[in-house]
């Protein structure tokens, strides 16, 4: 716009200049040339033409996007049955039939030069909204530091921070489902530091109230859970890149009640137990990606694996709903559970990808105090596993259709063949994705 004004001004100046073209002397021409040159220079200095600026309230509207997703699940076994040996863990399970699994509303904007705000609301199948991510993040701290405050997904591991619409499979690996209730979410603070090195190295600490499993949502002074993690990563040439990480999590569990836990007395429908004690988890993760010429559009391979190991020790109250007398028996209890998965995703031609994942869990052998030794199962003698196969097609960057088949041996004697069909689409402003 300003350019047009300058040019009109230049023309007006030239036209209003009282001279006769035929009689113009060399001096006049020289003067005109200089004047045009000056105007040109001013135009260049005025910089880029400002783009349209409508002003008003709407001009500061945040970026809004809506992720639309639906999954159809066909399972032969009841998804409410937990993996063998993991009845005292989370069991996010699956949904049978049609469900609005991945739909979410995302609103992001810079708040001021210092802060950026993110609100992410999952659309519940019942129709309500639940806050998945609500945080502010500093944008202008220096020295590689960044601070996040609010409700956010913990940065531990590789998959934990990934939102459901970016998952490569319909569901999370078993180890995430049982040890983190799919994803560890926290209300608290995250401080991250990126080292000033050529190789990517970040170290972060999180403090939270222990909102997400295995935390028991502490509502007292101080913090209920802590996370430490470090990631390191780099390129190898232009075709390969990788990231590796280690994570530690600890929380104090208070009166964590689990229902329908099988026991040695073979009580019908199980019993309800309550656990209080320390929970410490350590994990390692590794991701490696390869694309010929580094061109992700045509073909790429992504390999990843993660391992988590959790030790819990404290006291267990057996059958809290027992008709007294006798009163429920409390004694010491400790167990080390672990699990891992490896998966590969291969984009074999533009828009088409397939994936293979193998999951495995180890419920460990629990040390049960003498008083409960006749009630609580210490050794399940079974290692849950699952194999999943995925094929997806993305008509564009903003839409994806997926088919997934799984052979689920996570429950002893209840092998399940599972079929999922899913679409995920995103409309509106769509932010960039993490690695």
């Amino acid at each position, binding site marked *: 716009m300003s350019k047009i004004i300058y040019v009109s001004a230049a023309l007006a100046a030239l036209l209003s200049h009282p001279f006769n073209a035929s009689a113009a002397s060399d001096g006049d021409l020289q003067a005109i040339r200089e004047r045009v040159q000056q105007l040109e220079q001013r135009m260049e200095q005025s910089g880029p033409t400002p783009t349209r600026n409508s002003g008003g309230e709407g001009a500061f509207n945040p970026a809004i996007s809506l992720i639309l997703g639906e999954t159809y699940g066909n399972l032969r076994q009841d998804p409410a049955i937990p993996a063998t040996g993991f009845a005292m863990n989370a069991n996010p399970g699956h949904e049978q039939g049609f469900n609005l699994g991945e739909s979410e509303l995302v609103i992001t904007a810079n708040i001021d030069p210092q802060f950026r705000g993110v609100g992410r609301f999952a659309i519940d199948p019942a129709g309500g909204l639940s806050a998945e991510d609500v945080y502010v993040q500093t944008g202008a701290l220096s020295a590689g530091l960044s601070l996040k405050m609010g409700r956010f997904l913990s940065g531990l591991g590789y998959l934990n921070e990934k939102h459901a619409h970016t998952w490569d499979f319909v569901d999370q690996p078993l180890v995430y489902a049982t040890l983190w209730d799919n994803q560890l979410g926290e209300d608290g603070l995250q401080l991250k530091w990126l080292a000033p090195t050529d190789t*990517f190295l970040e170290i972060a600490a999180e403090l939270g109230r222990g909102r997400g499993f295995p935390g028991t949502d502490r509502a007292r002074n101080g913090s209920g859970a802590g996370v430490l993690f470090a990631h390191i990563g*780099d*390129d190898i040439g232009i075709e390969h890149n990788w990231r590796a990480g280690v994570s530690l999590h600890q929380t104090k569990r208070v009166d964590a009640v689990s229902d329908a836990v099988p026991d040695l007395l073979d009580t019908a429908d199980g019993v309800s137990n309550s656990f209080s004690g320390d929970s410490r988890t350590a994990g390692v993760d590794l991701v490696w990606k390869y694309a010929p*010429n580094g061109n992700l559009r045509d073909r790429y391979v992504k390999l990843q694996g993660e391992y988590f190991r959790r030790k819990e020790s404290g006291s267990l109250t057996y059958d809290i709903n027992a008709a007294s007398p006798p009163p429920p028996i409390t004694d010491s209890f400790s167990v080390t559970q672990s699990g891992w998965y490896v998966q590969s995703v291969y984009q074999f031609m533009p828009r088409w990808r397939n994936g293979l994942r193998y999951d495995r869990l180890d419920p460990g052998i629990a040390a049960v105090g003498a008083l409960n030794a006749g009630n609580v199962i210490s050794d399940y003698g079974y290692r849950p596993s699952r194999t999943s196969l995925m094929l997806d097609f993305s008509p564009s960057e903003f839409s994806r259709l997926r088919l997934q088949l799984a052979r689920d041996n996570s429950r002893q004697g209840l092998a399940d063949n599972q079929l999922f069909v899913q679409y995920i689409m995103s409309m509106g402003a769509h*932010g960039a994705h993490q690695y």
Partner: protein
Amino acid sequence: MQRILCTFLLLLLSGNVHAALDVFACEPEWAALAQQLAGDKASIYTATGALQDPHRVEARPSLIAKARRANLVVCTGAELEAAWLPVVLRESGNSAVLPGSSGYFEAAHYVVMLEIPARLDRAEGDVHAAGNPHVQTDARNFLPIAEALSKRLIQLDPSNTAYYRQQLAAFNQQWRAAIAKWGQQAAPLKGIPVIVQHRGFPYLNNWLGLKQIAELEPKPGMEPSAAYLGSVLNELQQHPARMVLRAAYQDGRPSEWIAERAHIPAVMLPFTVGGTPQATDLFAMFDDTIQRLLAGLK
């Protein structure tokens, strides 16, 4: 153990020896331009390769680490890097290169944008609100961009002002001479009808007078389907084109499919520095582009 750790940390830090300015260039053409203008006063890192689709890059750990130390980020802008750069800059924890600060430079700001969509709708494919971002295919665009970039270098590193001015003057002189030469060489290309695989060349067409009559992508960013290619082929019988153009990073099959059936040459252009073995710097990139186009005429 401690010794291993120390060695490891030293190894990590050893990459730290560098020139006055750390420049993070999003694409090879801006790395090449920064090299011309800053010479040995800057150490330049290029985030994407010439054979990578610049729309589809990931926020890789290495990019975040490089952006952490950058004094200046030089990118195309106009949303070309929207899929990855915002994450890289945010994760870098480096406030000096955030959009709006003096360490963030968008080349597309300094040229007249083409193909600004009248209607912003994803039904039109991957359109960019600010206009077509592939500004580097018109050699004339490098003059205002070089001028602005040089000013930015001076702003960030005023102690070398004289050097940057001298580099800019030398570049301008050589570049103007080269534009005149390319203009002459490319004279036979004026008005030649072409098809393009992706809407990547409006600036090249605008500069050399090529006439684009069709695209192989049904909508920008969408893969050409067999049915759509068939309809383009039909169209070609009424309005014949002389060649089919694509950028080096693109899959050659759609172009070659059409080329074979329409009996016209498929011409692969470097699109950026390094796109072809010949395109070793900015000058060579345009030399090679014009040579390849002229070869397509024969």
